[in-house]
């Protein structure tokens, strides 16, 4: 490649000093180049130093860190040794930074346009009038709705995905030479992620700007990057073109990262459940449940979330609950746990009806249903020793004390594959994955029958997350606990759940055994979710955008409707006059597979055949027609 070198990072070293004054090396001699119009991806797990390196391009470090060596040259000038006045001009002027969370970046009290144009005007790169014009151009390029007027809105008046794109407009407004994107899609739903990725890719290409893309997600990298730098613990493991790294990785660590990439959701990945733990009655069951927030008026919640939910969990089974944010996944688990009493409907445990409010439930009932919180960081009391955190349920439910309790704590730590010595540590002294294991261990200590896991792997790195899933599978086999596993990540659920419940806007749109749900016929929403899971394949983004469900499905938020099918406004098969007015009927298929849709089964199957044909046309895989079960 003979393109002009824009930015050179040469033997960059960054260190921190701990309380004892010892030097802790964070970045240990990193060298790479960025050419004009090129996207360089920095990839690695948390603690690999990728964000620290990306910030160095702005001649900035987080407080407590120091540059100890190396150079960062923009057009041959070292930005690290520039006088502060020039560095100030560089930041937001030559190099623009996009933080992970747009919601935290935008000031809620100032209109979007003012914030988007601020840096460009401040650095004198554009006048306010030019900047306004440029901003509108960018809104169009980023395919924002109502592009001419969106700038007059406040940040809370646009959706999360739109805000993320607006942040890109903010960065691009002053025509920076280099853009730094720090995990810009990590916190988004898959469907929103596609929308943002597509816009980023388009605008980077049109503007011919260079970018540093920081992420831990290889599948995302495969879509946007030209050059990949693989980092581990502040050192470069491997770097090369996207084709080279994705298709022919050489370093063992890169290969390990590849393995942790979740497979494309497909039928047949789940593990067979042994019949060891079977019983006559279902473990936990929810019947005709309606729930919401804001109190109950006339038997209906003021803010309805879930409507007429029927879900049952068999002994020793893993039921995956999937849907975008705002679909009511967590609410469902909270109702089961008794944290939110339902407005209507029953919760049944081992054939006995449970009280809606956990304060009215018996201790033995509380013990049998355990809730595992999403964020281990906040779910574990920072002032309690691990031994006490795990020991408390043992003491509380089972009356264990003293030596007996200690022995049991060690046993449970072993069950979650942690050393017994961890009992004497505080949560702060553990890594993220280890904390999540403790979080699970606390629930396990109660010796429950059902564990409600709310997005327990969402905040973890891919390798760590994969290990936690492995652990959960082992636990299921060893203890016969049933799991309700909530996730927005279909591939995680597909690789691990026995049954899948697809929630959309508070309704169950499809449910059944994993293998059935992931095979056609699909509910149109399930189809959208499956198509949105990024594949680690160059060109996937372009391919998937060709699919018809993408045209209407993405870039729209979840809306909870009181009449008709909530998916109506995003559905490629929507029937006007029916779908928007009547509640969809439930189509019963074999093995308890249910789809709630107005569209006939034949039509769903036919659509699927068309989709496959389009897909195969692109992929040229030449496979046979997808296997289809007709009931």
């Amino acid at each position, binding site marked *: 490649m003979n393109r002009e070198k824009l930015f050179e990072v040469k033997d960059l070293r960054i260190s921190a000093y701990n309380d004892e004054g010892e030097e802790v090396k964070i970045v240990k001699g990193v060298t790479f180049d960025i050419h004009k119009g090129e996207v360089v991806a920095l990839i690695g797990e948390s603690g690999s130093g990728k964000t620290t390196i990306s910030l160095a391009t702005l001649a900035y470090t987080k407080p407590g860190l120091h540059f100890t060596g190396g150079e960062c040259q923009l057009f041959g000038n070292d930005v690290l040794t520039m006088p502060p006045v020039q560095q100030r001009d560089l930041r937001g002027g030559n190099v623009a930074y996009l933080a992970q969370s747009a919601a935290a970046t935008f000031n809620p009290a100032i209109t979007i346009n003012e914030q988007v144009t601020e840096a460009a005007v401040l650095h004198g790169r554009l006048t306010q009038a030019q900047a306004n014009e440029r901003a509108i151009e960018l809104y169009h390029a980023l395919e924002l709705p109502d592009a001419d007027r969106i700038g007059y809105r406040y940040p809370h008046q646009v959706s999360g995905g739109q805000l993320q794109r607006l942040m890109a407009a903010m960065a691009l407004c002053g025509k920076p030479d280099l853009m730094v994107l720090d995990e810009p899609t990590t916190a988004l739903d898959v469907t929103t992620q596609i929308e943002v990725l597509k816009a980023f890719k388009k605008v980077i290409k049109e503007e011919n700007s260079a970018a540093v893309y920081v992420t831990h997600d290889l599948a995302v990298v495969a879509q946007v990057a030209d050059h990949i730098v693989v980092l581990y613990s502040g050192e470069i493991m491997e770097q090369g073109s996207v084709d080279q790294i994705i298709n022919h990785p050489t370093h063992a*660590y890169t290969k*390990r990262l590849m393995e942790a990439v979740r497979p494309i959701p497909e039928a047949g990945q789940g593990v067979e459940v042994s019949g060891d733990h079977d019983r006559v009655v279902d473990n936990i069951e929810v019947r005709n449940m309606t729930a919401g927030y804001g109190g109950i008026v006339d038997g209906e919640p003021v803010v309805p979330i879930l409507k007429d939910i029927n879900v049952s969990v068999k002994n020793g089974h893993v039921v995956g609950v999937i849907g975008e944010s705002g679909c009511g996944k967590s609410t469902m688990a909270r109702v089961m746990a008794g944290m939110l009493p339902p407005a209507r409907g029953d919760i049944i445990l081992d054939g006995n009806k449970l009280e809606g409010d956990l304060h009215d439930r018996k201790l033995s009932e*509380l013990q049998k249903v355990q809730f595992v919180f999403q964020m281990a960081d906040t779910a574990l009391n920072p002032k309690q020793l691990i031994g006490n955190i795990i020991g408390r349920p043992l003491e509380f439910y089972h009356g264990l004390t003293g030596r007996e309790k200690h022995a049991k704590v060690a046993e449970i730590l072993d069950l979650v594959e942690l050393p017994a010595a961890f009992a004497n540590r505080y949560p702060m002294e553990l890594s993220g994955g280890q904390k999540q294991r403790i979080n699970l261990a606390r629930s396990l200590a109660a010796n429950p029958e059902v564990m409600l896991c709310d997005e327990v792997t969402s905040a973890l790195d891919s390798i760590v997350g994969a290990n936690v899933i492995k652990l959960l599978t082992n636990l299921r086999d060893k203890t016969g606990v049933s799991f309700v596993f909530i996730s927005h990540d279909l591939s995680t659920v597909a690789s691990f759940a026995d049954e899948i419940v697809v929630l959309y806007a508070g309704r169950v749109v499809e449910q059944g055994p994993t293998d059935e749900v992931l095979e056609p016929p699909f509910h149109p929403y399930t189809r959208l979710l499956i198509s949105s899971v990024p594949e680690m394949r160059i060109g996937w983004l372009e391919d998937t955008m060709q699919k018809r469900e993408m045209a209407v499905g993405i870039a729209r938020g979840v809306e909870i409707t009181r009449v008709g099918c909530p998916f109506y406004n995003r559905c490629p098969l929507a029937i006007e006059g029916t779908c928007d007015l009547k509640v969809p009927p439930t189509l019963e298929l074999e093995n308890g597979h249910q789809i709630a849709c107005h569209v006939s089964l034949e039509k769903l199957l036919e659509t699927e055949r068309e989709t496959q044909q389009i897909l195969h046309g692109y992929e040229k895989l030449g496979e046979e027609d997808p296997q289809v079960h007709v009931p």
Partner: protein
Amino acid sequence: MTEQTATTKEEEVLAKLDAFAELPDAPPKRKFRLTWVGYVSTAVVVFWLVICVIGPSIAPFHEMDMDGDDSFLPAGEGEYGHFYLGTDYLSRDTLSRILYGARNTIGISLVATLIAYLLGITLGILAAVKGGWIDMGISRVNDAILALPTIMLGLIVIAALGSSIPVLIGTAAIIYATSVFRIARALGQDIMVQDFVEAAATRGEGVWWIIRAEVLPNAAMPLATDFGLRLVFVVLFISSLSFLGLGVQPPASDWGSMVRENLQGLTYGSYAAIWPALSIASFTIAINLIVDDISAKAGGSLAKKMV
């Protein structure tokens, strides 16, 4: 050769990944060290606390004895003994009065602050945990007290009940309990919405256990730093009451009234008012510096965590 080092490095990385892949290999460190400022300040505070106990026994004179030859004598040898810091307006030994006064000033403030804390934390956490009408009731009463200027309120209460040490302690305690309540309630509310409290609630734990095991340990550190500050305020409050003549009643000594009594001496070039003022300053500043040091440490470890 280079290839070989490359592979060993790869192996090293993989070994790290396999054996406790998920990072920290460093053993947990739970050292708590103050800076030298912290040590000096602690020494000063400890010194004054010791004086509270042994002050009267090491004082060269009794606090009420008028042993000097004259008022406002400079430091030095007098007819009846050595006045290390000179004499005050009634020709009493300034050093002895400071040594005696430590007991009153620091003792009263310490007891008052402790009572203020007991009251404030109990009610504050209760309001945070219970919420609803209980919270509403306590908070409004608290707001009403908080709205009155502290010195005015103190003056009115003492004017009505007369000045005695129990009344002083009680007044200071109630006045300062209001701000402790505010802090405790805010902290409690923050902690109550944390997932670990919800986890305890879903387990079926009672209110008492949640307060004791989940809320209080997490509120302890900020409350402790605030304790230092609050103690300083109470010292100053008692001193200012004494300065107005409503605090500790003469002839008993306390630092605040000593400053007031000897103020006129400044015009004669006497240091009799300066020494008690310095005592107040050294004690309060030392406490503030310790508090700063502790909170800087807490903040520092937080920054380290982010790295």
